């Protein structure tokens, strides 16, 4: 049995009806983008699985001619990432743009040579965001997100960086479900098989940095978030107490990233608190 099949046999509750999920996501993408008055979409494509799946969904939803993929490597980015990104782009046949972010990143950090890897990684993520939004305006193309539910819950992403988008088709899919759908849509093997990485520094891998595997954490998050099991019940379910504690802390501590900035209330009608309109207001 393939590893994905083996995993889904153990965690059947994470299995998705692939055809129906893809239909739901592509229809909803078309409608949300179309309503906003856009015919085109743009997204960053890194060579990783998340942006590959977003790219495939966009190409299905809008047709390849309406999609722009942007590759934004840094000099330390793995060359294989760029190759994988290109493979995905070629496979769906969309237009692509390459913007090397090395000059601006290096120029900025010349003033902060001691900056940590975290600062550098976040800066790169926000630089990429800034490029996507610039090109979005230039091409009248809406920015499509690539953050999955696992990383959003764990806060394993950069606020106002890779988290920024107008519509995110992956935000309610766990990482393992991203794998499942990517396999279904025919994302290239090299992307499916490589260990997930933000590629923010050489040899970075998500699972080494997080200290647990996506296969473990997705099962845990399903019971913790979707089923609302309390810790004791999670332990009974066979999850490691330490993992439960660490994951819970990450979810709580990253709540701010999933929220809009806090507005301090002064008036009788405050944006967010008592001025509440749907996002699709007037669309």
């Amino acid at each position, binding site marked *: 049995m393939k590893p994905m099949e083996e995993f889904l046999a153990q965690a059947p509750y994470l*299995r998705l009806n692939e055809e129906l999920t893809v239909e739901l996501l592509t229809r909803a993408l078309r409608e949300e983008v179309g309503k906003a008055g856009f015919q085109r979409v743009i997204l960053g494509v890194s060579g990783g699985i998340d942006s590959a799946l977003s790219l495939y969904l966009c190409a299905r939803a809008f047709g390849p001619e309406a999609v722009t993929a942007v590759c934004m490597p840094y000099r330390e980015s793995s060359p294989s990432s760029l190759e994988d990104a290109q493979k995905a782009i070629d496979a769906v046949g969309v237009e692509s743009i390459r913007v090397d972010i090395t000059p601006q990143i290096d120029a900025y950090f010349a003033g902060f040579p001691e900056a940590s890897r975290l600062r550098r990684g976040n800066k790169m993520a926000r630089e990429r965001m800034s490029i996507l939004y610039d090109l979005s305006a230039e091409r009248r193309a809406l920015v499509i997100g690539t953050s999955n539910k696992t990383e959003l819950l764990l806060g394993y992403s950069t606020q106002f960086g890779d988290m920024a988008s107008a519509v995110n088709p992956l935000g309610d899919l766990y990482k393992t479900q991203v794998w499942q759908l990517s396999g279904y849509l025919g994302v290239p093997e090299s992307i499916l098989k490589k260990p997930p990485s933000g590629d923010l520094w050489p040899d970075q891998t998500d699972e080494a940095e997080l200290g647990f595997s996506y296969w473990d954490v997705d099962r845990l998050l399903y019971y913790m978030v979707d089923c609302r099991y309390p810790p004791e019940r999670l332990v009974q379910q066979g999850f490691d107490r330490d993992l439960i504690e660490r994951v819970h802390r990450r979810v709580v501590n990253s709540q701010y990233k999933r929220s809009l900035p806090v507005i301090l209330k002064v008036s009788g009608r405050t944006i967010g608190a008592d001025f509440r309109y749907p996002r699709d207001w*007037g669309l």
Partner: protein
Amino acid sequence: MRVGLAQIRPVLGRVEENLKLHREMIHRADSEQVDLLVFPELSLTGYQLKDLTLEVARSLQDEPIQQLVRESHRLDLVFGLVEEGPGHLFYNTAVYASEGAIRHVHRKVYLPTYGMYEEARLFARGRSFRSFETRFGRMGLLICEDAWHTSAPYLLVQDGAEILIVLANAAAKGMGAEKMASEESWSGMLAHYSMLHGAITLYANRVGTEDGVTFFGGSMVIDPFGRILERGERFEPLLKVVDVDLEDVRLARYRMPLMRDEDLELTARELERILKRRFEGGDHP
């Protein structure tokens, strides 16, 4: 009797555009000799209204609403709106119109306010479930969450309804390996009601996406034996036209005389006792 289910995609917060959509659907249904055309919940406004509730609310006497009601001269109409009722109370309302006049108004009783829903923030609560006479027979209206309370269809059927009309805004959620949980629950639940009550169920659900939430459609007609006769395609705006035979209600209730054997008096007595115990004795639940 020919039924039409108007599986539409209302435009959020734009009553004028939705009125136009209704008129187009009525025209189509009329050309297909539909006798009764059913629109989904809040068909004139869309669902995720939040603070738009104030501006989309209409009195039932408003001219555009009355114009729509007057379209019911050849076919009967069921549609949904935010009704501004007496005392400026806002209701999630369904209207049954026939021969150019409003015949029945149902104000949603059970306003979901949990998880992704916040209806009790927006709407006043309806106070009754009543069946009503139509030119085809006795019917009852349920709006979405109303149908999840087993007492609601029970009351309508005991009150004489032979056709249950369910206006819904049911969202695609709970995707699983085979099916969507929400879709499965709806079809299972309504098929059971139809079977247990020997009633025809007409279920009109909308399509389209609002704020990332997609409504799945799949509008259905269920016969009084609990068989799904027809089901509209998922996600697709359409008019589903289905012939139903009220004679089936007679046959179903003869074959399975649950209605005959139902002991209303016992139910009322037990409910009285339970009410007393729960609300006077402080014994929960």
